[in-house]
């Protein structure tokens, strides 16, 4: 080449122009293609490394006595890797969701210390979406396992935080919730589902999965009957289940969890082969709401226990608690928990709903916390430690 006339020749100018367009497009598409095809592998690689750090620190460095928690729950440690045993455990698996346990488990461990017991189950609430926090909660699950417990993941199919670029089939954000369950059943969200399922499989331990809970409540969540028909719900459930099956995910325990205050929930049952546990929430609002009254646990649950029993599945009280409007909190717990295993032999899991500032009800926030109420704590501790 002589001097700088490379760009002066007309032909070269033309060739260059075309090359910029072609090469530039190829480069961008190429990088995106390669990135999206190796992304999972790379991210998994790093997450594996990260979980090795967590393991190493917990097992090799950490010298605090709490580390022996798993040994102290020997009966549970013996069955926790076996899905079949978890469907029929020898005693009730207690657990909790603690609203102060968002960034650590300190409060939940304090709760079990106060109750003089151990909580084999720890509940995580997580929502659908395309953001990092919508991914399978790898770190939390890992931590729960390191603590010696198992996770109950309440998995809420909110659809409004999906990025439309990554999910081209999905509808406009304003219309997304109407018949959203059909979109799920039609596979529009399969990419998310598959990612999540793969991560769940990679956790390699049983995971209780409570998907689309309270699906029969026509007021609360977008996946309720005000947006979807019963058929749509069942198809969505079956589709989600089949995506997990197709990826060979066998460590998930499927928890179907209707809201028993609304009648006709039986119609939402996805089918015997799609459900492992039947759960519900038993929360006594007392006189805290216009529509509510002080009800005992038995009043709230017994009738439905008998109906649930027909399915021949183990049962779970996924959210268990009471407010103190119009009654005695300690008494409520005492009535509920005394001789519980005899009264409700099919209930295999019971999780305290230990939530401060619950603002899921409009206009009011509720305090389900009881750790600071020593008479409550004593009553509960006495009851559960008196179980045979």
């Amino acid at each position, binding site marked *: *080449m*002589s*001097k*700088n006339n*490379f760009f002066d020749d007309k032909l070269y100018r033309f060739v*260059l122009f075309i*090359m*910029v367009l072609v*090469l*530039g497009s190829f*480069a*961008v598409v*190429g*990088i*995106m293609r390669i*990135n999206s095809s*190796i*992304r999972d592998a*790379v*991210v*998994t*690689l*790093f*997450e594996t490394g*990260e979980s090795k*750090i*967590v393991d190493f*620190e*917990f097992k090799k*460095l*950490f*010298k*605090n006595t*709490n*580390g022996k*928690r798993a040994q102290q729950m020997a009966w549970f440690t013996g069955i926790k890797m076996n899905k079949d045993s978890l469907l029929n455990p020898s005693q009730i698996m207690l657990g909790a969701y603690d609203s102060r*346990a968002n*960034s*650590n*488990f*300190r*409060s*939940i*461990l*304090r709760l079990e210390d106060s109750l003089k017991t151990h909580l084999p189950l720890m509940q995580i609430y997580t929502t659908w979406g395309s*953001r*990092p*926090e919508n991914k399978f909660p790898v*770190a*939390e699950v*890992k*931590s729960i396992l*390191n*603590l010696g417990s198992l996770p109950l993941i309440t998995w809420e199919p909110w659809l409004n935080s999906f990025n439309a670029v990554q999910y081209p089939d999905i509808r406009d954000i304003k219309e997304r919730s109407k018949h959203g369950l059909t979109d799920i059943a039609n596979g529009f969200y399969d990419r998310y589902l598959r990612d999540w399922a793969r991560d769940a499989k990679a956790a390699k331990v049983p995971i209780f999965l409570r998907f689309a809970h309270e699906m029969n409540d026509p007021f609360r969540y977008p996946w309720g009957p005000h947006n979807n028909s019963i058929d749509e719900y069942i198809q969505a459930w079956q589709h989600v289940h089949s995506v997990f099956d197709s990826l060979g995910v066998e460590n998930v325990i499927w928890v179907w969890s209707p809201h028993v205050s609304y009648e006709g929930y039986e119609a939402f049952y996805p089918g015997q082969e799609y459900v492992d546990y039947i759960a519900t929430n038993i929360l006594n609002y007392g006189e805290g709401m216009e529509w509510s009254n002080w009800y005992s646990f038995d009043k709230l649950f017994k009738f439905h226990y008998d109906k649930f029993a027909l399915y021949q599945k183990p049962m779970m009280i996924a959210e268990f608690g009471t407010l103190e409007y119009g009654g005695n909190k300690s008494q409520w717990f005492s009535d509920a928990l005394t001789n519980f295993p005899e009264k409700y032999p099919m209930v295999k899991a019971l999780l305290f709903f230990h939530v401060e500032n619950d603002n899921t009800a409009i206009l009011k926030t509720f305090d389900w916390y009881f750790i600071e109420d020593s008479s409550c704590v004593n009553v509960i501790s006495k009851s559960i430690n008196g179980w045979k």
Partner: protein
Amino acid sequence: MNKSESNSYWQVSRAASVRKIDKLVLFILFIAGVAAVANFLVWWVKVEHVDVLALFAIFSFIFIYVLARLVFVWYTYLNVSRPDVPVAPKGLTVAVFTTSYRGEPLDMVRKTLEACKNISYPHTTYLLDNTEDPAFRTAAEEFGAVWLELINVPGAKAGKINRALELTTEDYILVLDPDHIPFPKFLDNTLGFFSDAQVGFVQVSQAYYNQNRSFMAHAAAQQTYTFYGATQMGYNGLGCAIAIGANCTFRRAAFDSIGGHVVGLAEDLQTSLKLHAAGWKSVYNPVVVSRGIVPEDFNSFAKQQFKWAFGALGFIYNDLPAAFPNLSMNQKITYLSIATYYFSGFINLLFLLLPFLFFVTGYLPVNMLLGEFVLNGMWIVLVSIAFYIYVQRWMCHPASERGWHWRAMILKFAVWPVFLYGMLLSLAKVDVPYIPTAKRADASISPFAKPFLWYSWLFVFVFALILLYRMFFIELGDLLFSSVKTWIMMGFAFMSFAMSLWALFVVRPGKHLYTTDPWDELPTGLFKKSA
């Protein structure tokens, strides 16, 4: 360094030519690089990556700045050009200016004067002297140079040049540093370009003969190899070859048009800018036709770098705005890029402090998956490496200059406190006198070594503290969730710690290494050929 390599030091050596295929390769790399940067930024700027908004904003801005600089570096390489050297016409009048200051080694100046005498194109050598030492006058006369006593001239080098311009009449002036040994064919490689009446100055490569005398010298020299190769060749292609103060041949008319050489801390860059703004063209000829001395110890290097860092900011505030409207777009970007290079000291500091900010407050600037960061950042690194390898074909003296330049990378990190200090003093408008670059090794511990000591102690202390806390005191519930973040940040801090240890090694004083001066080691018979 082997013997043949050092023998070839003293032969004229020119960078390789730029072929069509080179342009094609650079072009493809450039497109790939832009795509990689675009991909990275698109991925980076996401609401879900924000942890603390203010921190995210600051770090995003810095990232974008760093990436923009990087793209410009690639753009420079894309424009790499090597001019054909026109034959120097006979009969031009040429002055060679070399300077001597009080305290400068006589032996070194003597070698330079002797070499000047051997330059084959007819010229007059002037020694611009303020030593008030008669030995310098004797030396000048011994080698047929004109001795000009220029004492009490303001502004050191540039001031002397301006005074000497008044005392002389030659049309072309070669400014040569007193530590540089010009080759006989020096002027034949520059004067021909002035046949184009618009050419104001011709710069050639700056090379060294003492880079193997110490780690520091090697590192400092390595930092310049690419600059005098592909970078300046790229500036040349952008119409913005920069005068770097030495080894530069000027047209007297160009000096006259801007009122002489600019006096200041970044006077070379300032002069270069003024000439470009006045409409003069510049040429960079990537050829080794002289060799000089590179700082052999960190103190000398730090002084030189401090001067440039300090001067660069003043350059942005004082010089650039006035000249800006008269520059071409390429020239604007080039000068901005050169002058903002020294911000890297400040940026380095921020990145060093980041992990400690997290340890103390728990704040993170970003909330992202490490794997995704690596995945998206990887492409930029790959393209950078490809460029790095490819542009090595334009080293001026490939036998000694090609390689990974890892010493230069460590030195680049080691110099951040210098850059930062220069920038801060400049912001505070502290008056700093002109400092000539040291020719002899300075044995004292550099004050710029201290930040590395502090940082190393800080790291060891914080590491021990966090480890003990997490082993014995933290509650289990806190431990598990904080593991990943804590140890990733500790990993970043450790990298800086390792770099700091390297830097301490680099900045350590090393006088014991030097029993002779570099100019005593020049090969014998260097000047015989044309003598």
